[in-house]
C-alpha cells in the first residue's frame, strides 16, 4: 500500500421539515504515491489493436496504430507484464505468441515491437472477443494493477450489442480499460459503454498522428497507479434509498447500478485503480423523514482496498430545521456538479436529436449546454460546443445549429461531454 487516502464531504446538511433527499459531494484524494512507486511486478498492461479491414484506409491509420503501440511498449517499465492482442472478427495473440503475459525487458520489448510492425489489416470487428481474451490473459497476473488499452476505428459489427453487454458484465471489475477511437467511423456510445463498464476513459483520436502521444500518456498513467481494486463503501440508515452514486470529476460516471451488497444497509461501488489523484463523487440518499431538530447520519462513505482495508471515511449528515436561512442555503459543490452532470446529459441528448433531425430539441438542449458550460466556467466544453452551434448569447443559451459540422467535431464533443470542470475553490 503506497498511497494515503483522504475523504472530504461537502453538503448542506440542513433540510426543511418533511424533506428526505440528502445530497453530498464526496472528494476522495490519494497522495503520497510518487514517494513510494509501486513495484513493476505488480503492473500488467495489455494493448488491443484493431486490425479489421477498415484500418487499411487511409493507410496512415494502421501505420499510426502500429507506431502508437510501439511507443506504448517503449513506455513500459522493465519488469512490467504485458501483451499485445490483434482484434478482428476473431482475436489472436500477437505477443507473446501463446496466451499469457511477457515480462518487459530490452529483449521482449524488441521482439514485441518487431511483431507489431508486421501486423496487417483484414476482417471484421468483435470487441467482446478481444476483451474476453484480454481478460483471460490478465487473469494470470498476480499483481493488483491490470490495465488495457483498446484501439478501434469502427463499429462492433460482428457481435450483437447484447453479446458485447454480456461479455462486459462478465469481465467488469477484473481490469481497467481505456478506449480510443481513431478516425470518425466508430460509435461514441458503443465505446463509452465499454469504457464505463471497465472504469476507463474514452476519447477520440481524429488524427492518427496523435495516437503515439496518447498511448504514451495512457501507459505512463497506468505505470503511475499505486493501488488497484479500490471501492467506495456506502452505509445508509434503515429505510433509506440510494438515489444515485456518481463519479462527477474528472468525468461523469454513474456507479449506481454497479453496487454489490456487502453487509446490512451497506453496498460497495467499484472505482478501479488509483494513482496520485483526486476524484469527486455525488451521493444522493433518500432517508426517512424526521422531526425538526433531529440529526441523522444519512450515509457513511468509506474507501476500501480490494482486501477490505478501510483507507478513509466521510460522513453525510441530515439535520432538520425550520430555519429557512439554513435549509435553503445552496452548497457550491453540489450545485456545480449537478450542473456538470446535466451538461453531459444535454450534450448527448442534443447531439442525438440533431442526428435524428429534431432541430427544435437539438437547439434547446445544446443551448442549455452552452449556458451551463459558460456559467460553470467549463471553457473546454464551451469551445467544443462552439464548433457544433453558433452561439448567439452564452448567458441565456441562445444558439443556432451550424450546418455542415465536421464529424470529428461532433464526435469530439460527444466523447468529451462527460469531462467535467473541477469545482473552483472559493
Amino acid at each position, binding site marked *: 500500500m503506497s498511497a494515503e487516502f483522504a475523504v472530504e464531504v461537502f453538503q448542506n446538511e440542513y433540510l426543511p421539515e418533511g424533506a428526505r433527499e440528502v445530497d453530498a459531494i464526496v472528494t476522495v484524494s490519494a497522495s503520497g504515491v510518487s514517494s513510494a512507486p509501486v513495484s513493476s511486478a505488480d503492473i500488467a498492461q495489455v494493448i488491443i489493436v484493431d486490425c479489421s479491414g477498415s484500418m487499411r484506409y487511409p493507410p496512415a491509420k494502421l501505420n499510426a496504430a502500429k507506431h502508437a503501440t510501439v511507443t506504448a511498449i517503449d513506455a513500459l517499465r522493465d519488469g512490467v507484464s504485458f501483451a499485445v492482442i490483434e482484434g478482428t472478427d476473431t482475436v489472436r495473440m500477437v505477443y507473446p505468441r501463446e496466451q499469457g503475459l511477457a515480462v518487459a525487458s530490452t529483449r521482449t520489448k524488441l521482439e514485441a515491437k518487431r511483431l507489431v510492425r508486421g501486423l496487417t489489416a483484414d476482417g471484421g470487428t468483435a470487441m467482446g472477443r478481444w476483451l474476453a481474451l484480454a481478460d483471460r490473459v490478465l487473469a494470470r497476473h498476480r499483481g493488483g494493477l491490470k490495465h488495457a488499452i483498446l484501439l478501434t476505428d469502427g463499429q462492433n459489427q460482428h457481435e450483437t450489442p447484447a453479446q458485447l453487454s454480456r461479455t462486459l458484465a462478465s469481465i467488469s471489475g477484473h481490469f481497467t480499460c481505456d478506449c480510443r477511437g481513431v478516425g470518425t467511423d466508430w460509435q461514441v456510445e458503443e465505446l463509452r459503454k465499454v469504457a464505463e463498464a471497465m472504469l476507463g476513459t474514452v476519447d477520440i483520436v481524429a488524427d492518427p498522428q496523435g495516437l503515439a502521444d496518447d498511448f504514451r500518456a495512457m501507459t505512463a498513467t497506468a505505470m503511475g497507479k499505486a493501488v488497484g481494486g479500490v471501492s467506495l463503501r456506502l452505509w445508509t*440508515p*434503515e429505510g433509506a434509498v440510494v438515489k444515485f452514486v456518481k463519479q462527477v470529476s474528472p468525468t461523469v460516471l454513474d456507479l449506481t447500478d454497479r453496487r454489490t451488497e456487502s453487509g446490512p444497509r451497506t453496498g460497495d461501488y467499484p472505482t478501479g485503480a488509483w494513482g496520485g489523484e483526486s476524484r469527486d463523487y455525488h451521493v444522493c440518499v433518500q*432517508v426517512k423523514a424526521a422531526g425538526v*431538530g433531529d440529526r*441523522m*447520519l*444519512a450515509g457513511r462513505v468509506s474507501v476500501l482496498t480490494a482486501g477490505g482495508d478501510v483507507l478513509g471515511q466521510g*460522513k453525510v449528515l441530515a439535520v432538520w*430545521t425550520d430555519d429557512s436561512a439554513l435549509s435553503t442555503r445552496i452548497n457550491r459543490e453540489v450545485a456545480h456538479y449537478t450542473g456538470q452532470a446535466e451538461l453531459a446529459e444535454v450534450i448527448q441528448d442534443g447531439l442525438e436529436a440533431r442526428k435524428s433531425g429534431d432541430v427544435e430539441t437539438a437547439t434547446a438542449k445544446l443551448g442549455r449546454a452552452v449556458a451551463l458550460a459558460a456559467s460553470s466556467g467549463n471553457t473546454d466544453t464551451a469551445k467544443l460546443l462552439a464548433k457544433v452551434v453558433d452561439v448567439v448569447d452564452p448567458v441565456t443559451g441562445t444558439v443556432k445549429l451550424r450546418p455542415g459540422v465536421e464529424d470529428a467535431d461532433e464526435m469530439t464533443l460527444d466523447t468529451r461531454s462527460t469531462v467535467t470542470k473541477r469545482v473552483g475553490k472559493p
Partner: protein
Amino acid sequence: MTNCPECDAPVGAKDRFCEECGRNLLVRATPVGGPDGSAAAQCACGSEDIDDDGFCEQCGRSQPVGRDRMEFVLPTIAGISDRGRRRARNEDSMAFGHVHARGVAAIVCDGVASSERSDEASQAAVDAANAVLVDALVEGSDPERATVLAVASANRAAGELARPEAQDVAPSCTYVSAMRTDSGVVVGWVGDSRAYWLADDGAKTPSRRLTKDDTWAAQLVADGVLTEAEAVNDRRSHVLSRWLGGDSGQVSPHVVTVVPEEGGIVLLCSDGLWNYLPEVEDLDAVRPRGAAPLEIARDLVAAALHAGGHDNITVVVIEVGVGRER
C-alpha cells in the same frame, strides 16, 4: 451499609467522614465539569449499536452525547440541561450540591452565544459558584454573603478563559443561583436566567417570579419607555445589560430572600425554558403536581422542546416545604 462516593470504601450510616479517604459524606454535589451526559445504551429504534460519533448504526439517528443532555439528581433537587433542537451545542451549565441537614445550593449559567467558548464559561462559572455555596452550607455562613462571593468567584472563573487579544468575544454567561437553608431561600442573579417560586396548590403564598431580567428591554420597561408587551417583541429583549466574564468588570448580583410559609418549588431556568413559558401561570399549567423534582424538570424541558427548542434549555427544581428539606 453504603459506600463512599469518592473511593467506594464501605462507610457506616452515621459516619460523617469516610475512614478511607476522608471525604465529607454529608456533602454531595454535581461533578466538576458537568454531569456525564454520555449516550444512552440504546437508541429509540431499539438498536444498541452506536458508533463513536454517537450515530445509531441501524437508523442513523444521532444520540445525545457529552453536554447534549445532562441530568442529575440529589435528594430534594434535580436538574436537566438540554441542547434543544436548534443549537449546535449546549452552552448552558448547571451545578448543585446537597449538604445533609443544612440545605441545598444550585446554579444555572447560560453561555452568551455571541461570545466564544461560552459553554466553557458557563461550566467554569457554575463549578466555581457551587464550591463557594456548598462550603457556605457546610460552615453555616450567611447565604446572602455567600451568594455575592459565589458570583465573584464565578465571574473570575469565566474571566480567566478570556484571551487578551479577543476581549470583545470574551467567554461570558448569565448567572442565577438559589440556596435553601432552614431560614429560607436566597436567590441571586446576573443576566436573564430566572428563578421562580411555584407554590403548592391551595397555598396562601402565590407563585411568582423572583428575578428581574438584566436586559436592556427590561430596563426600558422599568424606566417606562416600553410596555411589557412591547418589550417581548423588541429585538433588544434578549440583549443583556449585565453578565459574567472577562469583559464584565466587577459584578455584584441582585439578591432576594424568600421565606415560604408553605410548600412549593424553586425553579431555576435559562431562557430556553422561559421563552416558551414566561409567566408563572404558563409554568403552573405544565408542571406536574406531587411529582419528584426530576419528573417536574423532565416535563418542563419536554414542553420547551415540544414548543420548538430554539435555545438550550436548563431547568433545576428544588423542593421547599416543611419536612421536605432533608
